[in-house]
């Protein structure tokens, strides 16, 4: 028999531990909520129809941010278009084809290192390689490629996890029917892994849309009223626009509401793209449950 007081002490410890866990969850939620609320309250007054549909005027102290919205949309979609196919193919190679051993370990370390490289380094690489060496100039193309490489590790990592989560029995079942390895991967493994891969893409979208440093030298224009006509044009972008208004604008204090408004639009844009991906993912999950 356990002494009564020992039991009570155990329950107390349990309560304390659960309390700490709850508190951590609460702090994290509060931090997120706090940031969102702060930006919302400072920015929502700036949001008007004109703000969303017009170009900046009066040395960017008035008018809208439409070119930046369009620019960020292009850059984000471009980055995903670059990184998703490349990332999925790399992950397939690493999990399905490559013989597990030293070589694959080295590649994985490389990918993880890439994830840890500061984003400004990607910006400089993009400037040197895409803008100057390949002569793309400061353009949507160069910016998308740079952002694509930046989010590649995220997408490879998520895709690898998703592929590994597909039960081995599916592969065996398919191969045992005399179906080739490639057909097995494309018909069984990849469709089952797609929801997980999409999660990686969602994370990638958030990162690509929000980064400033990588596009600073490769794609973003300080100001351009015109919308881009081709992928070789420069664009304005939301994060860079915020940066410009807050550090190099003609009237930094006066444009604070515009800065918060732009930040609010950026967050809404990322959430919007995420929402679309989440809806697609959950409809896929319904079909592909095992």
């Amino acid at each position, binding site marked *: 028999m356990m002494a009564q007081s020992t039991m009570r002490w155990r329950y107390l410890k349990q309560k304390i531990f659960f309390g700490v866990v709850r508190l951590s969850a609460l702090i994290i939620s509060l931090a997120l909520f706090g940031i969102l609320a702060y930006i919302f309250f400072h920015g929502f007054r700036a949001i008007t129809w004109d703000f969303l549909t017009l170009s900046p005027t009066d040395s960017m102290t008035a008018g809208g941010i439409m070119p930046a919205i369009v620019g960020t949309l292009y850059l984000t979609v471009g980055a995903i278009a670059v990184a998703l196919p490349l990332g999925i193919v790399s992950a397939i190679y690493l999990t399905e084809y490559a013989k597990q051993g030293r070589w694959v370990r080295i590649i994985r370390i490389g990918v993880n290192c890439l994830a840890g490289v500061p984003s400004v380094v990607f910006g400089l690489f993009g400037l040197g390689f895409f803008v100057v060496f390949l002569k793309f100039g400061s353009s949507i193309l160069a910016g998308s490629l740079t952002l694509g490489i930046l989010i590649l590790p995220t997408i490879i990592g998520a895709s690898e996890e998703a592929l590994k989560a597909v039960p081995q029995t599916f592969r*065996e079942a*398919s191969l*045992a029917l*005399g179906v080739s390895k490639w057909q097995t991967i494309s018909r069984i493994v990849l469709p089952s892994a797609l929801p997980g891969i999409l999660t990686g893409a969602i994370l990638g979208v958030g990162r690509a849309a929000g980064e400033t440093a990588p596009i600073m030298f490769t794609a973003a224009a300080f100001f351009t009223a015109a919308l881009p006509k081709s992928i070789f044009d420069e664009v304005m972008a939301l994060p860079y626009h915020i940066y410009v208004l807050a550090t190099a604008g003609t009237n930094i204090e006066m444009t604070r509401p515009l800065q918060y408004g732009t930040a609010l639009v950026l967050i809404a844009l990322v959430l919007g793209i995420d929402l679309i991906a989440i809806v697609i993912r959950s409809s896929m999950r319904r079909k592909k449950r095992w």
Partner: protein
Amino acid sequence: MENNVIIKTRNVDFYYGSFRALTDVTMDFEQNRVTALIGPSGCGKSTLLRLLNRMNDLIDGTRVEGEILFEGRNIYAPDVDPVEIRRRIGMVFQKPNPFPKSIFNNVTYAPKLSGITNKAELETLAEQSLRQAVLWDEVKDILSRSAMTLSGGQQQRLCIARALAMKPDILLMDEPTSALDPISTAKIEELIDELKRLYTIIIVTHNMQQAARVSEYTGFFYIGKLIEFNNTEKIFTNPAVKQTEDYITGRFG
């Protein structure tokens, strides 16, 4: 007698890395018969089964010595395509493993990829395979429903139907009823009895009554060696080797 042998192993050794899982296994499998492989866990019976359709190729660091002759040809010869072998030697696994697709698409998955595109032909094939697996009456009205909604026993029969749809010569079964309840098990055993008219069946089982019920021949394995291989009746009533007797009477294993 020798003419009816469809697949045979000759002095087969098999290694996982440096671990030898099979030693000098020589066996003949007769056409349209059920051969059971029995023995305690880790004795190599499943390994041998997976060698017969080259499923062990999927595991890194394995090595086969000796020959496995299917219709007189060594299936481990360098010019043999394992995909081709697996089309002709189907397999059913321990746990039912249908794809997360509809019942119809599960059955027609492999035939479609092997080039049958005609819808009517696929429908006929699906019905035929599901009938052979004695599942048709239960699923004919729900063919478009996900295979995951079926019961375990139904799923296993679906897996059998899926294998039969490729019209294989040999059907390998790796403990096909060990995850099923007694009623589903009885159904699968009845099915095996039907199927041997059309197919050669090689079954690994932990259930000795099952081996006695369904098979004509039984091979007993112990620590990677084929200890005794004979008529099932002989093995279960009058085994020649003491180890076999000890195992089937439940003295070890």
